[in-house]
């Protein structure tokens, strides 16, 4: 650290610290208590681009989309009070999906704290359960160290969101500025040590297994362990399935990629979870949507769990061998101990189930012969145009499950969706952030007509920034997933799931976005082609058969092996 310091105000220190951390892009929304920082952003606008969203929730979801595709820390800014509370949904989303974010909120001046001042809210208490770490800064001098620590904590170990709440007087007061990056926090060990004996024990189990099965999650992507995963899979010949957030870590067309596990996962992976003799979980957390009822989940199998977070071990599923550490490191360590194998007969069991699923579900979905359009055929058409090279963003609901089931992926960090929290309204702002995080790539956002209306104000952000995202609204005039459950479990009582929608084409055109509506199958291919060929943002609305359902399905509380095809 250079001992030379400069006398500047806290607000400038915030912007300079962001630049020191390599953040040249931030999303946010100004307001009273954060105005000094915005004033500095104005001065530094040639170095740090600030994207004005239309709502603070849009800002944080955009920061999430940016972080998910780029692997960098997403940054967002909001004012005190409602600005801060509007971030909370995105913070909770980032916490449960382990997305690195630094959120900076303005706060009333420190002498007003606790007086119920205008736009005062206790954002530290509100955000405590959903942040990896948070801090309130009331002294200008503390700002650089707080930001350095925030970036270090957000991106190290299992990533997550952090929040820094800065009082207005701390923004305005002067400090002796010098910046030193944070390299450690004594009470925090981001990557726990790997026990090599556990690696060997795991290898012994893998080599002895007759029916081993790998399920991998986002830990592979966050740990940048895609190549190591591939090496393990290819050497061991083990059929491998993904969780929603693990998607894109392994190319769709990899011969050992057997599909998705979980509630709307593929038939074979769910059925065979309860027939494998060894379940190898890598960077995943046995979410209830993955496991169904735990009482009958993989009881016949031994379980190996690779994870960076010791608190995940035995949290939901009891493991036989836990390998703690960063997946990139632990997978690299285990590969030399693994015997070459093929497991052909076992792999054929997956193929047999795939044939059943193809016939009952997949072919009717991707190449329908019925009159109404399906979500699957739209996604399939986009696959043909993008060759699976696009970043795919999805919102939450039926279309999300169709998207993760049917979108093709060739590249990692290409699947952006709200997995853990299931936040409707996530996709449109996340797609804007994703496009800015990977400007050279095609970004396609699939959104339902319900979720689209939760954050469609962000069309204004597209208008202002020119972010060339391709928006596909799959419109069934229903809150489709809830409607599906009402059909299956509530005798078709469609309580508050029928949507009367506005003219989405006019809405997109109001924001100067080229828009097309497809109602007939014969118009789909041409419209998709035009959308993908467009250099600018494009809005495509496709009218979908109203009461189509997502299958396979593991009903809540059922066993994964009781997965239904209809």
């Amino acid at each position, binding site marked *: 650290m250079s001992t030379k310091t400069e006398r500047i105000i806290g607000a400038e220190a915030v912007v300079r610290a962001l630049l020191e951390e390599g953040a040249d892009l931030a999303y946010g929304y100004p307001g009273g208590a954060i105005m000094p920082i915005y004033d500095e952003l104005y001065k530094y606008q040639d170095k740090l681009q600030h994207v004005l969203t239309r709502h603070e929730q849009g800002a944080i979801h955009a920061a999430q989309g940016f972080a998910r595709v780029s692997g960098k820390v997403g940054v967002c800014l909001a004012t005190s009070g409602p600005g801060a509370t509007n971030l909370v949904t995105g913070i909770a989303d980032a916490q449960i999906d382990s997305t690195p974010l630094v959120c900076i909120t303005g706060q009333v001046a420190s002498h007003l704290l606790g007086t119920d001042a205008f736009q005062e809210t206790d954002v530290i208490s509100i955000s405590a359960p959903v942040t990896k770490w948070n801090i309130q800064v009331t002294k200008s001098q503390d700002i650089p160290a707080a930001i350095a620590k925030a970036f270090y904590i957000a991106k190290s170990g299992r990533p997550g969101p952090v929040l820094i709440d800065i009082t207005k007087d701390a923004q305005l007061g002067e400090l002796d500025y010098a910046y030193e990056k944070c390299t450690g926090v004594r*009470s925090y060990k981001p990557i726990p040590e790997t026990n090599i004996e556990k690696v060997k024990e795991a290898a012994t189990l893998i080599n002895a297994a007759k029916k081993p099965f790998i399920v991998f999650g986002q830990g592979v992507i966050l740990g940048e362990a895609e190549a190591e995963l591939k090496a393990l899979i290819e050497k061991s010949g083990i059929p491998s399935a993904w969780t929603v957030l693990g998607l894109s870590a392994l190319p769709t067309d990899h011969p050992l990629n057997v599909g998705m596990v979980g509630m709307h996962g593929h038939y074979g992976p769910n059925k065979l979870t309860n027939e494998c003799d060894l379940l190898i979980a890598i960077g995943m957390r046995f979410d209830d949507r993955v496991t169904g009822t735990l009482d009958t989940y993989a009881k016949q199998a031994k379980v190996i769990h690779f994870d960076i977070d010791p608190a995940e071990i035995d949290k939901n599923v009891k493991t036989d061998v836990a390998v703690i550490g960063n997946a990139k490191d632990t997978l690299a360590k285990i590969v030399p101990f693994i015997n070459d194998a093929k497991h052909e007969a076992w792999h054929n069991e997956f193929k047999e189930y795939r044939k059943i699923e193809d016939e009952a579900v997949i072919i009717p979905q991707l190449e329908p012969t019925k009159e109404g359009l399906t979500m699957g055929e739209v996604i399939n058409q986009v696959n043909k145009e993008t060759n699976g090279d696009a970043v795919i963003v999805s919102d939450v609901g039926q279309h999300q499950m169709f998207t993760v089931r049917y979108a093709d992926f060739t590249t990692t960090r290409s699947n952006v969706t709200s997995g853990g929290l299931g936040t409707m309204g996530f996709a449109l702002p996340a797609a804007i952030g994703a496009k800015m995080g990977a400007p050279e790539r095609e970004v396609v956002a699939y959104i339902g007509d319900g979720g689209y209306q939760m954050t469609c104000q962000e069309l204004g952000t597209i208008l202002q920034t020119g972010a060339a995202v391709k928006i596909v609204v799959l419109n069934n005039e229903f809150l489709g997933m809830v409607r599906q459950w009402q059909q299956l479990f509530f005798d078709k009582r469609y309580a508050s799931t029928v949507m009367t929608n506005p003219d989405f084409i006019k809405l997109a055109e109001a924001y100067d976005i080229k828009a097309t509506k497809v109602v007939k199958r014969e118009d789909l291919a041409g419209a998709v082609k035009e959308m993908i060929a467009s250099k600018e943002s494009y809005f495509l609305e496709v009218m979908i058969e109203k009461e189509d359902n997502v299958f396979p399905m593991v009903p809540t509380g059922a066993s994964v092996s009781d997965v239904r095809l209809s």
Partner: protein
Amino acid sequence: MEKQLYTISVYTENNPGLLNRIATIFLKRHINIESLNVSRSEIENVHRFTICAHMTEVAVKKLVGQIEKQIEVIKAYYHTDDEIIFHETALYKIASNLLFDKREIQNIIKNSHASIVTVNPEFFVIEKTGFRSETEALYDELAPYGIMQFVRTGRISVSKTEMKISEQLKNL
């Protein structure tokens, strides 16, 4: 699996927000905190939470894992009663005239090994340190004479085996 009383010891940095974060971990799982004590520890600038709660061993393991995940928590441990030395302290405020009018009170104080903290013309204060059962027993004995105020601390405890916190801190 049966629930039992666990004493959870948490070594932390001194951060005012941490109590909130730790309490939230219990709240989220509907685990009632029976007692809570915060003090300095044997290490400079390291604080120690002592928390008692009823739960199963599976639950306490997961809970301690979640507590340790907090950035400013250095280390957390859980113990059963036979693994620790523990005490609570209770204060009993009683009207002074009773000390002279009811001579039995003097015997109660003597027999329970309680001590008198202060005496003034209006009231006197007894302090008793020991197990919950002992401070309760003294309460029951004094109650018939009238207790003006009663208060008890949370449990404080030290483990029989070493917790090796200083060593861990050096490695961090």
